């Protein structure tokens, strides 16, 4: 087992590849997403996507913000060798909506908003409110954990280079 600080820097690309693959899956292969969570109605790119390109000592960062923003420039950056560093996602299940940002290098979640829950009215109903909120967080955490497991399974197989990388390249070319 590697030291955590070494592992963080050495493998941050793995989280960025995960987000890049996730963007591809959302656009091209939503059945993988439903396999990870049968309750999923839809998963969409939200209001922010950040791409980063590292080449030797050069570093470029591109941020696209805004509701329904066009992703052509992000796709172009992908074609030029950038990876997705941050992705804002909208998850829907039945009439409920979650929105959050996932960071590639750390897999941290931020700006997470869950469906509204009732405010605790008294100390007696606090436990119920807390458990409901935990259930709502857990739904997303388990979904992401399963997606990451699927990605790692692909990433460690021979098929990653033989099949998946080619499909992602073909997709990025076809979008422009």
């Amino acid at each position: 087992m590697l030291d955590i600080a070494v592992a963080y820097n050495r493998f941050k690309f793995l989280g960025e590849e995960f987000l890049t693959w996730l963007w591809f899956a959302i656009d091209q292969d939503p059945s993988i997403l439903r396999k990870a969570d049968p309750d999923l109605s839809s998963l969409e790119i939200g209001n922010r996507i950040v791409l980063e390109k590292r080449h030797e000592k050069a570093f470029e960062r591109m941020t696209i913000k805004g509701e329904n923003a066009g992703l052509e420039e992000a796709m172009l950056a992908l074609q030029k060798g950038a990876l997705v560093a941050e992705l804002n996602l909208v998850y829907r299940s039945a009439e409920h909506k979650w929105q959050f940002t996932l960071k590639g290098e750390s897999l941290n979640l931020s700006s997470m908003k869950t469906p509204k829950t009732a405010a605790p009215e008294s100390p007696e109903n606090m436990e119920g409110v807390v458990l409901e909120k935990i259930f709502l967080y857990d739904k997303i955490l388990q979904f992401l954990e399963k997606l990451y497991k699927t990605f790692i399974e692909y990433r460690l197989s021979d098929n990653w280079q033989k099949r998946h990388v080619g499909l992602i390249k073909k997709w990025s070319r076809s979008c422009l």
Partner: protein
Amino acid sequence: MGLLSSSVSITRYQVQGKLEKPILETIAAGLKKKAISDVDDPTVDKAVGWTSFEKPYQPDFDGSSFVYGNYLVFSLRIDRKTVPPKLLQKHVVIESDKRLAESGRPYLSRSEKERIRDQVTDRLYATVPATPNIYDIIWNYEDCILCFFFNLKATNEELETLFLRSFDLTLIRMIPYTAAHYASDLKSTEKDILLELSRTSFAG
């Protein structure tokens, strides 16, 4: 920072190690041992400890007050004294002018200036109250998973250190490598492949 907030940040951890039985009593003892205490010492600028989720200013870990269904819910509290730089500057200038007037000299030496700054800093820290920051925690003991409702590295490190000291358990942050290594049920050959991975290029 709070799990009931309308917008939250989450860092996920895997908990490694085993606790002595009865588990809830062991955890309560760990929480009590490292519960937050007020910063009474004027020379101390920070206090770090556990506090109750529902009563963050009156920590109480008696009974099962931190148990919510299958989860343990409590908070990390960090009380920190901060002196605004402009306030410090103001008092340093006032004190320097006073010393100059007393000595009758036109300037102060570098060491005198440093001493004045240190004295003023100590005096201000002794009078300023500590500001509390509260970060909630959900610990699923059975699944060895812990969620910390904050993302900043320095605060995460405070949590990891205090957790180890309180329970003798290690928190492993779920970053891309550890999430693959621990959470994906990899065989040893796959763990070796993981170690050798390098960045994929989708350029082309």
